[in-house]
């Protein structure tokens, strides 16, 4: 058991260091430690399932050890910026004011083709329109265009866009969600009035959403068709 714990810790930190050296582009929208955890846990969990000769505890102990390491590292990284940089790295500026930083590109093992592909994925064809392209610590590329390339907002146009609010589901497949009704400041009486005005019972509703401004989306449940 002690050997399993020590081996797990060694493998965990070895993978952490290896993946850190490989660069962020390997991660695919996961933080480094999450990626390492995901890579290890799936295999560890399947070990005692595949081989009945391996005691269950040999699968559980490394999973619990990894869980502890991950929580401790995440907690410590929240408190200590330097530790966070050491484990997760820093965001890298691949494009600064329309100019590619070749050094950063090379450091992150990003080829120009891959950079262009990422930019195209986000709708940018011309690098000179990009003010900043930032490779985040989870491997995601965030692109910020020059202000003159940004879409015009309603505020810039002087248009009153009206108030919008988050729509909550209040009836899901005939089931009333009381907690969501409370979120929008309504009660069962209000809902009954709304249903009565549409001539239906809650059980007949497929989906009903409502927000705090009173906007309602309503979809009646379809009749079952006999084959």
């Amino acid at each position, binding site marked *: 058991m002690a*050997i399993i714990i*020590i081996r797990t810790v060694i493998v965990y930190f070895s993978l952490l260091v290896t993946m850190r050296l490989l660069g962020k582009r390997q991660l695919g929208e996961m933080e480094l430690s999450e990626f390492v955890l995901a890579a290890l846990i799936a295999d560890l969990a399947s070990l005692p399932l595949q081989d009945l*000769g391996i005691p269950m505890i*040999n699968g559980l*102990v490394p999973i619990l050890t990894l869980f502890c390491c991950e929580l*401790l590292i995440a907690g*410590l990284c929240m408190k200590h910026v330097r530790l966070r940089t050491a484990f997760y790295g820093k965001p890298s500026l691949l494009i600064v004011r329309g100019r590619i930083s070749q050094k950063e590109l090379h450091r992150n093992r990003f080829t120009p083709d891959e950079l262009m592909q990422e930019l195209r994925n986000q709708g940018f064809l011309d690098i000179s329109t990009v003010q900043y392209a930032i490779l985040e610590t989870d491997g995601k590329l965030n692109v910020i265009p020059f202000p003159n390339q940004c879409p015009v907002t309603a505020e810039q146009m002087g248009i009153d866009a009206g108030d919008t609010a988050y729509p909550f589901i209040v009836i899901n497949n005939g089931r009333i969600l009381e907690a969501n009704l409370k979120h929008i400041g309504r009660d069962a009486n209000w809902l009954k009035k709304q249903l009565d005005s549409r001539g239906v019972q809650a059980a007949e509703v497929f989906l009903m959403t409502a927000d705090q401004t009173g906007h309602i989306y309503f979809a009646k449940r379809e009749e079952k068709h006999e084959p």
Partner: protein
Amino acid sequence: MNREWAAGILLVLLIAGAWWNIHAVDSLTGDILAGLDASQAAEERGDQAGAQAALEGALNRWLEADSYTHIFIRHAEIDATADAFYELQSQLLSGEGDSSAAYDKLRYHLDSIQRMEHPSFGSIL
């Protein structure tokens, strides 16, 4: 910070469990090895009944720890040790040939189980 504390405490408990396990396996293998030594000494004195009784005691100690061994030890190791026990037992019962190799084989398996739980450079790597 509660979750981090919980993780830290769990890690400490796991390490404590591992430490307890080292002592448990030391105690189990130590008892059995002592029984084996007594059995071999009796056998060398020509006391076949004493050798068989001491081996029986060691075998019972192994079988009594069945729940522990099945939770913590690889089943291949358990089977190999049980095989070595019964091989030695049948050799003692038949009274034919030199049984020292069978004693050594069983000792090797027990040593291997003990070594497996002791953290060392070799066992970790």
